[in-house]
């Protein structure tokens, strides 16, 4: 049997008449600033601080921070770019909808900020995809005045416009694969962030989501061509204007083509590609 833990050391009385804080409080503050406290010590510190309201609880922390800076000097190791991108992305989610990677006028390349998608809907059965369902459900943007992307504030349209300003972003136009004819709209793909936005301007028929839906596929040059990556499902509203984000569910290393197929509601795991109304080539294949 484990013996009971020893009682904590005697705690000095609170503030002395002349306001001198107890030594134990100083010990705990110094310990916290230099090596941390366990739970019992942290509770004790809280209690002592409550009894000594004139004591600044952060005083030793500031002293340690200033001392560290003095000891280290002005030379530091640069933060890795990938880590910086992660931090910036998290900041964007917390602080605002504006891109946080915009260069601050110092020639630094803008950062790639991946798109944020609504939480996917859990599939109801079988291999049916949930993903984001666009259209009547409200994810597709079919706003008036959207041309060319129509993004104001947030949403995929605004993201599409912002993406266009980034270096290295790929733009591609839609083609009807059966005829080779161009179709109105375009795809913007960020090969670094591995996400994109696509726009369709009344080039696909309105669908009944109870019967069928459109599904997006991303073809990756490094993967088996038979198994493109699912990019979500969407519906076409009455005016035919659609702007949707493309966020692959699997890592994309080298996207070369975006395709749209017509599938059963919710999408499929593997398409037979019997109905593929549009394709956009991102790179020369």
């Amino acid at each position, binding site marked *: 049997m484990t013996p009971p833990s020893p009682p904590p050391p005697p705690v000095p009385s609170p503030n002395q008449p002349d306001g001198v804080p*107890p030594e134990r409080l100083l*010990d705990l503050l110094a310990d916290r600033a*230099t090596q941390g406290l366990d739970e019992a010590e942290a509770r004790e510190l809280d209690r002592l601080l409550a009894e000594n309201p004139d004591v600044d609880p952060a005083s030793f922390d500031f002293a340690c921070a200033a001392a560290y*800076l003095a000891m280290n000097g002005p030379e*530091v190791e640069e933060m890795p770019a990938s880590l910086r991108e992660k931090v910036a992305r998290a900041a964007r989610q917390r602080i605002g909808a*504006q891109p*946080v990677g915009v*260069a601050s006028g110092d020639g630094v390349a803008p950062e790639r900020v991946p798109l944020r998608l609504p939480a996917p809907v859990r599939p109801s059965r079988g291999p049916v995809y949930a993903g984001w369902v666009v259209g009547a459900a409200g994810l597709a943007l079919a706003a008036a005045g959207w041309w060319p992307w129509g993004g104001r504030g947030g949403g995929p349209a605004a993201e599409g416009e912002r993406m266009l300003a980034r270096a290295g972003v790929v733009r591609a136009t839609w083609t009807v694969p059966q005829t080779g004819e161009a179709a109105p709209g375009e795809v913007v793909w960020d090969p670094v962030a591995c996400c994109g936005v696509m726009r369709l301007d009344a080039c696909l028929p309105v669908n009944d989501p109870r019967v069928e839906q459109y599904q997006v596929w991303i073809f990756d040059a490094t993967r088996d061509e038979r198994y493109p990556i699912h990019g979500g499902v969407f519906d076409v509203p009455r005016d035919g204007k659609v702007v949707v984000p493309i966020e692959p569910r699997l890592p994309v290393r080298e996207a070369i083509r975006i395709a749209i197929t017509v599938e059963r509601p919710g999408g499929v795991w593997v398409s037979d590609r019997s109905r593929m109304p549009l394709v956009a080539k991102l790179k020369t294949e």
Partner: protein
Amino acid sequence: MPRNPVAADACRWQHRDPSRRIAPLEGAHRRVPEPVLHRVAAGDPAAVQEVLDRYGGLVWSLARRLCFNRAEAEDAVQEIFIDLWKSAGRFDASVASEPTFVAMIARRRLVDRRRRAARRPEPTPTIPGREASNGDRPDAPPTAAQRIEIGEEAERAGRALEELKEEQRDLLRMSIFQGLSHQRIAEATGLPLGTVKTHIRRGLIRLRELLEVPGREVKP
């Protein structure tokens, strides 16, 4: 109960007279960048980029020094910046400089993480004055690649450190810079644990006092 007048002075900073703020260095004409954290607190996304420009290297270097490996350092940096975004509204330039505030937020998180991982072996201590040529950490010491503005306060701290007793200064360096626990410092130096704690505490109190006293210029 022993009384310590220095401690009494050093810990009454909460309600100090504004005139007792850290005095600027005489002859310091260097341009000090405007604080940016209040813009973060106001929800200005562009300010985030500035924070990363100014302090990304500082936080990363701190994490590299106080974490056990690179992967942990990356995790820690992400946590630190979340803390920083949350705490940005609490920054008060009259209490501490912005680099000191950022370093404090970072150190708190790193010390906490280190405490939680206390069962793991600590880095090999280096007693000041006997450092190996490759720095304090045996594994991948930080490579300087960027210069940052550490702030006038840190410069004052550097001078204040020179005024400490050598033993206090050395133990503070092992604790603050190398991130060693008091126990590990005691083992490395052969000093009793209580002595190590006392030196560190008194050194911190003295350091803060030197940073705080108005008009008291530490020797350049």
